[in-house]
């Protein structure tokens, strides 16, 4: 792991800080939003206001987005010293640059020249220096100002380096935060997940496909959909046909629960004792980075998340045999990694505006997998499913915009969605300086693995 501003990324806590941040938001907006948050009914969806209002999005941008760690790419995208990629991080454009040969030698900066503010790079590229196209100020890949052409007397070039963005790597997944001082400490997430991500070979992955799914809906609707599988049976026939867990995450009947139970037990016996087949959960909050991994069998004797259940590539990482596992990782609030034995999928949920969210999916195989692996077969399930998610989420957003919309109740199969919304309400209330200012004990609940009869042990995988 590496951070550009270690080791004090742990945000100072307390009311003072919350108040200082809350002051960024217009007082009128703040008051309205706090009143709306206060009347939010637990267990019910949010009011229209939260899904549409530009002022809400602005408050989220100022108070919430800047403290989130968010996946921006994969280390394999910048293999050589001087390689750089230009990415959006919420409403900012950033550069992620490799400055050395070591695995940790990657930094991220705002794509803004410290001279007069020009954009530095217009696209991904490579070079020993980053040269501004305006007045040719140049910067080393470490961020320091290199060219001092005509720099006025008295200006210290050492103070004119590129402005850093927080960066943390977890098994090759590059995550950034606009305000790492405010973002939660990512180290517990890295320590907990890195061994399992490495076991899955995510660190030694090669990108075979990346697709963008711009979705005309508020980011919270996109996440709410991502966190439940109640919609899987009606909306995702392909996903339902290949994922055994839908037997409990998508419906509630005794017989299919029993089937899943047996499936799950068989898988548990097969992977018995492996330290890389454990599940981990940290619900997280403003001070603790949300993370987790949830491992389960794909089901039905399927070895990979593919149309025919057969592998589409070679084993990734340190896995020794196909065991039909799917490991679902949560990295903060807006980033996910799903890993079958032979391919991994990185998900980015990127808020773009009150009514606009971009979903980006990147598929990885082992870096030494054959050159002729078929990206369409690898991408099949999540591509089909995400196109369907785009459609149903946009229909959701359209209906939520109606004067007839009222918040509706979450079912037991939507408990993860409910937990997300509750976390949102708590965190925004706290960030706006409302409520008691004390973080509440109840956070985002752990996903349930196994059977719905046992509340602490039933499945609710993102779909």
């Amino acid at each position, binding site marked *: 792991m590496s951070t550009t501003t270690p080791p004090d990324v742990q945000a100072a806590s307390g009311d003072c800080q919350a108040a200082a941040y809350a002051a960024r938001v217009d007082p009128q907006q703040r008051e309205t939003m706090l009143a709306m948050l206060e009347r939010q009914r637990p267990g019910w969806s949010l009011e229209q206001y939260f899904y549409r209002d530009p002022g809400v999005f602005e408050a989220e941008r100022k108070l919430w987005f800047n403290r989130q760690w968010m996946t921006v790419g994969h280390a394999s995208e910048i293999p050589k010293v001087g390689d750089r990629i230009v990415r959006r991080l919420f409403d900012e454009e950033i550069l992620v640059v490799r400055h050395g040969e070591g695995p940790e030698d990657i930094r991220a900066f705002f794509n803004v020249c410290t001279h007069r503010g020009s954009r530095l790079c217009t696209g991904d590229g490579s*070079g020993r220096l980053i040269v501004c196209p305006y007045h040719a100020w140049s910067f080393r890949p470490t961020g320091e100002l290199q060219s001092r052409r005509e720099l006025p007397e008295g200006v210290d070039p050492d103070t004119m380096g590129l402005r850093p963005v927080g960066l943390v790597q977890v098994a090759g997944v590059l995550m950034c935060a606009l305000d790492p001082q405010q973002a939660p400490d990512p180290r517990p997430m890295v320590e907990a997940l890195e061994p399992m991500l490495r076991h899955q070979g995510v660190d030694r992955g090669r990108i075979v496909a990346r697709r963008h799914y711009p979705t005309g809906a508020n980011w919270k609707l996109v996440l709410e959909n991502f966190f439940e599988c109640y919609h899987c049976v009606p909306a995702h026939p392909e996903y339902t046909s290949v994922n055994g867990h839908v037997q409990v995450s998508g419906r509630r009947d005794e017989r299919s629960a029993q089937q899943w139970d047996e499936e799950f037990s068989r898988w548990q016996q097969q992977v018995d004792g492996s330290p890389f087949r454990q599940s981990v959960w940290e619900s997280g909050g403003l001070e603790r980075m949300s993370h987790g991994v949830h491992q389960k069998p794909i089901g039905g004797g399927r070895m990979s998340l593919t149309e025919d259940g057969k592998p589409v590539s070679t084993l990734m990482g340190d896995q020794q045999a196909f065991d039909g596992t799917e490991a679902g990782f949560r990295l903060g609030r807006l980033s996910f990694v799903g890993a079958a034995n032979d391919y991994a999928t990185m998900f980015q949920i990127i808020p773009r505006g009150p009514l606009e969210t971009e979903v980006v999916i990147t598929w990885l195989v082992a870096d030494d997998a054959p050159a002729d692996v078929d990206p369409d077969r690898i991408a099949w399930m999540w591509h089909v499913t995400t196109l369907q998610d785009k459609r149903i989420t946009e229909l959701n957003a359209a209906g939520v915009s109606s004067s007839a919309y009222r918040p509706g109740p979450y079912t037991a199969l939507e408990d993860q969605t409910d937990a997300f919304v509750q976390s949102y309400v708590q965190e925004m209330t706290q960030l706006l300086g409302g409520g008691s200012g004390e973080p509440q004990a109840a956070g985002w609940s752990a996903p349930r693995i196994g059977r719905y009869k046992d509340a602490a042990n039933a499945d609710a995988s993102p779909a």
Partner: protein
Amino acid sequence: MSVAGAQPEVVFLDMAGQATTCAAAPGSSVMQVAMQNGVGSIRAECGGACSCATCHVYVVEGMQVLPEQSEVEQEMLDFTAAERRDNSRLGCQLLVPAEPARIVIQVPDEQ
């Protein structure tokens, strides 16, 4: 192509030794001559401000008629993509002299 001796000329060699001879207007830089004639890998990202190191060349002949290296150029040569050698220079800093001269430049494959 110019008649040798009548005006300065710059001979560009690629790393395989293939030569291209170009007439050079006095006062223009080796980088400009290369760009005007579409020679080699030179990128000249900063346009000749001595701040990008993407016009790196090896001077094979004619070093004595070329301007001396400035401190800034010396620093910038730490950032060349290809190996830095004793005869490494930045093409933008190599102004062609007014009097007839023959300058031989090797252009690395990488900038």
